[in-house]
Structure formats: structure tokens, C-alpha cells
């Protein structure tokens, strides 16, 4: 290496000279270090709305998971005094002696605190959504990847799908709830036992499209083994698809619970749930609006936040937006 000092010391006439070839430094490619996930989050946090929503979601999670530990919800607390049933917030506070956080949203069917009920139910809904999404997404993506890649497996699975997809979803869940009970884990089982199939089918089609792309063909010609093909060629390409799927799946379990409780096959009355609260209040929703709109608002807020955050994360996980 010739430094500037040495240059000056050289003969002034000799302005140009050979630098020589440095073997070590020419091996290094000079480019900024690139991390996929780092740039995903950079793009994600560029939008202010995402930060706001993330904070709200974190707050909901914190309140839903921590508050019931200190202030447990008991739906049957006031069941003996019928004068506490269906009280509007102001009436409830008057009844229970002045302002109280507990009766901020009035009372429900059996004099239960709507606010505490909504918070405990939100915990159930969030847990349900996370667990079901985790199980269904994992199983669905793993099976879908193989399903899309192997033609033999495809021939069998497509017939299985044709049959299972035609068994009415409500019927299957009802029969399962009827047979195994309607506790929380039984409900998770009912939602996941065939729930992964739809995801796997969707994912199969996506894999099939990538499978026959030219770069995959080239890779196969070079003898890349199938596990590496799936993990290096196909799955990275589908990251944004997976996140989009997650964005629609997570809120869909909350909606499913609400729907199933409404038609009478949801969680048992021992488990506080948004669907059950809505179902109990819906008959009189024009007369006692607070008992109905509180769980509906919370359910909608959670699902909208999850959906929007998921969609924005999916947009951010598309490398084309990283410019």
C-alpha cells in the first residue's frame, strides 16, 4: 500500500504510477450489510399509524391479561338481587354508591359488571385467536408446502380437500362441541381440527406457482435437494403471503367465536367470551344498548387493529417496498 506521504516523497515527474493488484481487498464486495427483517421493520415503522396501533394493541393485551388477576370477573356476583339487572352506567353507579370503575359500562343480564366482563372476554378471545392461528398456520403451511411440491401427495390431498371442504363447518364444530364438550381447549380443538386444511390449500396454490418458476427449475437442474428447495427457494418468496394470511386469520377466530356463540354452539358459560356476551345482549339490544355495544366495540376494535397491523406488516414484508 502506498500512502500519501510516500507519494509526495516520490519523484515529482512521476505523477502516475501502477497501484498494483491487492488480492485480499479485491475479494470483498463493498456493499452495505442487508438484513431482510431489519428493512421490513424499517418500512413498517415508517408509518406513524402502525406505531399508534401497536401501542393500543399492547395496551389491550396488558389490560386483558393483567387486570383479571387483580380484579377477577364474577358474572354471578349480583345474581340474587334482580334490581341490579340491566342497569345503565349512571343507574349502576347510583345503585352501587357513587362513581366506580367497575360499573363504568353498566350491568348486564344478571347484574354483572359489563366492563370486567368485556376485559375478561377480551383475554379469552385474544388467547383463542393466537393459539388457533399458531396451530392452523404452522400445520397448514408445512402441509401446504409439501402438498404444493409433491404431485403424488397432491392427487390424494385434493380429494380429501374436496370432501372435507364440503362438510358444513358449523355442523362439524357443533358435533365436536357436542361430543367433546364446550370448554376452551375443546373449542380450540374444534376450530383447528379441519381449520388448517383451508390454509394448506391456499398455500398449495401459491407454492405451485413458485415451483415452476425458471429459477426454481434451474435450481432443481443443479440438483438442489427438496428440503433446501422449499426452505431457500420457495418459503422466502412467500413471506409476504404468509403475513397476509396471518393478518386475515388472527381476527377471523375472534369473529368465528362471536358467530358460533351467536348461533348457540360457542364456548360454555364458564368461560367469559365476547361472543357469549353479545349473544346474551342481542335480544334486547335496542332497550339495553350498553350491554350489547360494549363487547361489540371491543371485538371490532381488536379485529380491526389486528387486521390493519397485519396488512401493513404484509406490505412491509414485500421486498419491493424496501427501496
Amino acid at each position: 500500500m502506498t500512502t500519501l506521504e510516500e507519494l509526495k516523497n516520490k519523484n515529482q515527474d512521476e505523477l502516475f504510477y501502477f497501484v498494483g493488484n491487492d488480492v485480499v481487498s479485491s475479494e470483498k464486495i463493498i456493499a452495505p450489510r442487508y438484513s431482510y427483517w431489519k428493512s421490513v421493520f424499517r418500512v413498517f415503522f415508517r408509518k406513524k399509524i402502525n406505531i399508534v396501533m401497536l401501542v393500543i394493541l399492547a395496551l389491550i393485551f396488558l389490560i386483558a391479561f393483567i387486570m383479571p388477576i387483580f380484579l377477577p370477573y364474577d358474572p354471578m356476583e349480583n345474581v340474587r338481587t334482580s334490581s341490579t339487572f340491566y342497569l345503565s352506567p349512571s343507574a349502576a353507579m347510583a345503585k352501587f354508591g357513587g362513581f366506580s370503575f367497575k360499573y363504568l359500562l353498566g350491568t348486564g343480564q344478571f347484574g354483572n359488571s359489563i366492563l370486567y366482563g368485556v376485559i375478561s372476554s377480551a383475554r379469552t378471545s385474544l388467547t383463542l385467536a393466537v393459539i388457533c392461528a399458531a396451530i392452523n398456520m404452522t400445520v397448514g403451511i408445512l402441509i401446504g408446502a409439501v402438498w404444493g411440491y409433491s404431485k403424488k401427495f397432491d392427487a390424494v390431498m385434493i380429494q380429501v380437500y374436496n370432501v372435507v371442504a364440503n362438510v358444513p363447518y358449523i355442523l362439524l364444530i357443533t358435533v365436536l362441541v357436542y361430543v367433546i364438550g364446550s370448554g376452551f381447549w375443546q373449542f380450540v380443538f374444534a376450530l383447528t381440527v379441519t381449520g388448517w386444511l383451508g390454509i394448506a390449500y391456499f398455500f398449495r396454490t401459491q407454492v405451485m406457482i413458485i415451483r415452476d418458476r425458471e429459477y426454481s427449475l434451474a435450481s432443481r437442474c443443479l440438483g438442489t435437494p427438496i428440503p433446501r428447495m422449499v426452505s431457500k427457494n420457495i418459503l422466502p418468496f412467500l413471506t409476504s403471503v404468509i403475513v397476509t394470511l396471518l393478518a386475515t386469520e388472527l381476527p377471523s377466530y375472534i369473529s368465528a367465536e362471536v358467530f358460533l356463540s351467536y348461533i348457540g354452539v360457542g364456548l360454555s358459560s364458564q368461560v367469559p367470551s365476547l361472543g357469549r356476551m353479545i349473544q346474551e345482549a342481542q335480544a334486547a339490544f335496542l332497550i339495553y344498548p350498553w350491554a350489547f355495544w360494549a363487547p361489540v366495540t371491543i371485538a371490532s376494535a381488536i379485529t380491526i387493529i389486528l387486521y390493519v397491523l397485519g396488512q401493513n406488516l404484509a406490505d412491509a414484508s414485500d421486498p419491493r417496498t424496501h427501496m
Partner: protein
Amino acid sequence: MGKYLLKRILFSIVSLLIVIMTVMLLVFSLINRNVIFQTDDRWNKTSGNDQKVYEYNQFQKYQYLTYTNYTNFVKSKYSEKYGEDNFTTPEYSADLKAIKNAKTYRDNPTVKEFIEKYESEGYEIVYLPQQAQKNGTIKKGYSAYLLAVKENNVFLRLWLYIKGLFTVETTSDVTDPALTEEMRGIKFINDPYGWWAITGSGTTHKYLLYFDGRFPFIHQNWIHLHLGISYTQYRNQEIFDVITAPNGSIITSMQQFPNMIGTDEYEETAIDFHTLTYNAEPTVDDLKNYPDNYTSSSMHRAGLSRLEISFVMGIISTIIAYLLGLPIGILMARKKDKLADKIGNLYIIFIMAVPSLAYIFMFAAFGTKVFNLPYNFATAEVQILGYILPIISLSLPSVGSLMKWMRRYMIDQMNSDYVKFARAEGLSEREIYRTHISRNALIYIVHGIPGSILGSLTGAIITERVYNVPGVGNLLTRAINGHDNGVIIASTVFYTTITIISIILGDILLAKYDPRISLSSERGGGR
């Protein structure tokens, strides 16, 4: 194409059969069968052995099992021997009484014969001994029974179901000996209650095929579809009749009974003369009014059937959805990232993310409070107003999803090379959007059209519940809540058939709309 379709249809039938079988397995083997008696008054009134026999009888009716009563066996044995009219010999009575003694009944030769015959056929012999009160008389409901019972397996049940799915009426359906061979037959007549009709004698129904001024103008009683029989919800009615019969109030009008035709006598009655069925024992009044034994009938009813109500609502909301969803989707794509697109996206997010129950109720509250529209369909004073809220509620989500997909496909097409080329050629933006992008984007939309039209037939669960609409959407959920096995199977078959047909029709329409797409794999296209 023809060959491919045939294969598709065959595959669909097989998968339909497997679905029926799966559902039968779920319903008949996983759910406790005694729940069907929960709301049965007759079961509550009987007790002891009578109740058990009643249970077997009902289980047989609902195809859980087949059973034979020893009494019937003895009766048929002696009537074969001595003829229909004089089989009640002392021997016969002795054989019947043999089962009363729990210790010695197996020594009786006829009992032995009964047991041997049915045990060899795989039946299980059930003996219900009689129980006496202290004074020696038999306790009420506790007389002795001897039965042979065999559980139906799922394949037999499926076979019986499929065998009974369609029945065609023939002239030998009525077994009444009063109707001689010469009287039976099929005639083409000029129908006094309609235009023309084909009537039968010896068939269960009198009018087999008839034309009249009522939509859809051609009606038939010839071929019957038996989807299943309701047990708890619509007592012993055939589901197909439940969903296709009008369920309004009875309407009377001035009509002539068959014997009055030709005179100027009229009577106010609600009888629908096209539904006449054979009656073996007509009353004196019947004989005065009718020339033949076809005297049983049902009434004219006002209103629409369950299926028609669901279909009317579904089809109108589908039309609204396409008329609104597609143009808005196109507009959003054209104004991408501008105000129109942002507002549209807000709506899409709202519809996609919020539980449908929530926004249907929001809309119900809004429509009821602000526009004073009837909330309850069944009790709406002006019937037509009752349709408004359910139809709008139904179209809200489909508008949202059509907007979403149309925008997505439009944007995908906008970036493709042929659009750039068209622009380079100097075509106007309007022309590019109308004849190039929209047409290509519509390819994906076309596939769903048959599904959304036929899907209107299956009704909507939440909307129909919220607005108290007597449609078909809640057939399955109500059946499940009421443990009505027949309805569960029937509605599954109904929903599944419609789904399968709409997927096939969607594929055909897609192939017709886009000539590049070939359904059969021989002629390019497929992999």
C-alpha cells in the same frame, strides 16, 4: 369438454356420497341418539316396555336400526297358512301368549323358529319380560315383548337414503282393492283449475303434471325428492316440502268442487285441488263433492316459501353487490392512493375485520332508528319494507369483497406489459380501462358469479336470525340445536349439492369467458 364434464360430475357425485356418509357417521354415531326424545310428548306419555318398543320403532323410522316384533312374525306366519281373514286360530293365540312366561318362552316352537331365523341373519334378540303388580295384574306399559334388533351400519343407511331419495308415482301405488285394474291409468285432461293437466288414477296424487297461471306455470307431483324427514322441528314433514311450501296464512276463494263443475254452484274454500291425494275411506261429504276417491288435499297458502324468501333476498342483494362493487372497485384502481381509494379501503377493512354480527346489528339499529324501517321481517306491517334491511345487510359484505378483488385484479393488470404497449400505441386511457384492463380483470370475477347466484338459495344464517326471516339459512343451525337428524342430513345434502354445482358452473363459465383457459388437460392449458 364433454368427457371432462362427465368425469367432473362423476367425481362430484362420489364426493357428495362421501360427504353424506361422513355427516351420517358424525350425526348417527357420535351424538347420543336418545336426545331425539327430549321434546317428544308420546315418549313422555309411555313407560316401561311400551316406551322401549316405541324407542325401537322411532329408531327404525330414523334409520338407526331395523327391528321385528315377534307378534308380527306370528301374524304373518299364520296368515300365510290360513289366509288373511281366518288366521286367528287357538294355535295362534297360544303362540302369542307363549312369550308371557319368562322361564318357558324359549320352549315354544314358534319362538324357537323366530329366534333361529333372526339370529342367523345377524339380529340381536331382545326379550322384555312382563312385570306384574302386587294384585297380579300387569303393570301399565309392562307387557312382554320379544324383538329382533339389528343396528344399521353406515353403508346400509347410506344405501337406504339414496334408494329413497327419488320416488316416481306409478298407477299401482294405491293398494286399495276397491280400485280395480281397469280404473287405473293416466289421462291427459283439460284442467278446470288450470290450463291442462296429466292426471292419474291409482297414483297417490291425482294431478301428476299441470299447467296454470301461477309461477313457474308448470308444476308436478310425479317425481318426489325425499331429502329427509324432520323429527323435532317440523313434525314428520319432508324437508323438501318444508322449504318449498308457502308458509303464509290460509287464503280462501270462491271455487267449485269437482262435482260442481258444469253447474253455477260455488263455495268458499281454501282447498288446493291440485294437491288431491287418494283417500281409502272418504266421508259422506267427500263423496258428495268428489267423483272419485281422491279427496285429501292441502290448503292454498299466501306468501312465499322459505326457499323463495331466501332466494329473493339473496338474488337482489347479489345484483346490488355486483352493480355497486365492480364499478367502485374499478374507480378505486383508477384513483389509486387518492381520496376515493382511501375511503374505499376504509370500508373494505371495516367489512373484512369487524365480525359480521357486529355490523349487521349496527346497520339494524341505524335503519330502525333513522329510517324507521321494520326490524322484524315476520311481523312487518308492509311486507315489502321488511325486505329492505335484510337485503342491504346481505349486500354489505359482498360489495366489500367484490370491491377488494376487483381493485386488486385491476391493479395487477395495470402494471402488465400489454397495457404499457396499448398506451404506447396511443390508445386513450378510457379505452385502455374499458376494453383491456376491465375485461381481463373480470376473468377472475366471472368464476364466482354462479356461486353467488346459487348461493342465494342457501340463505344467510345471521341476517335471517337477526331480522327473524323465515328462510332456509337457519335450517341447519336450528336442526343442530334441536337434534333433528333428518334435517341435518337433508340440509347438508342441499348445501353441498349447491356448492358443487356452483363450482362446476363457475369453471364452465370461466372457460367460456376466457378462451385461453381449457378445462380438459388434453388440449393444452392445464399441467
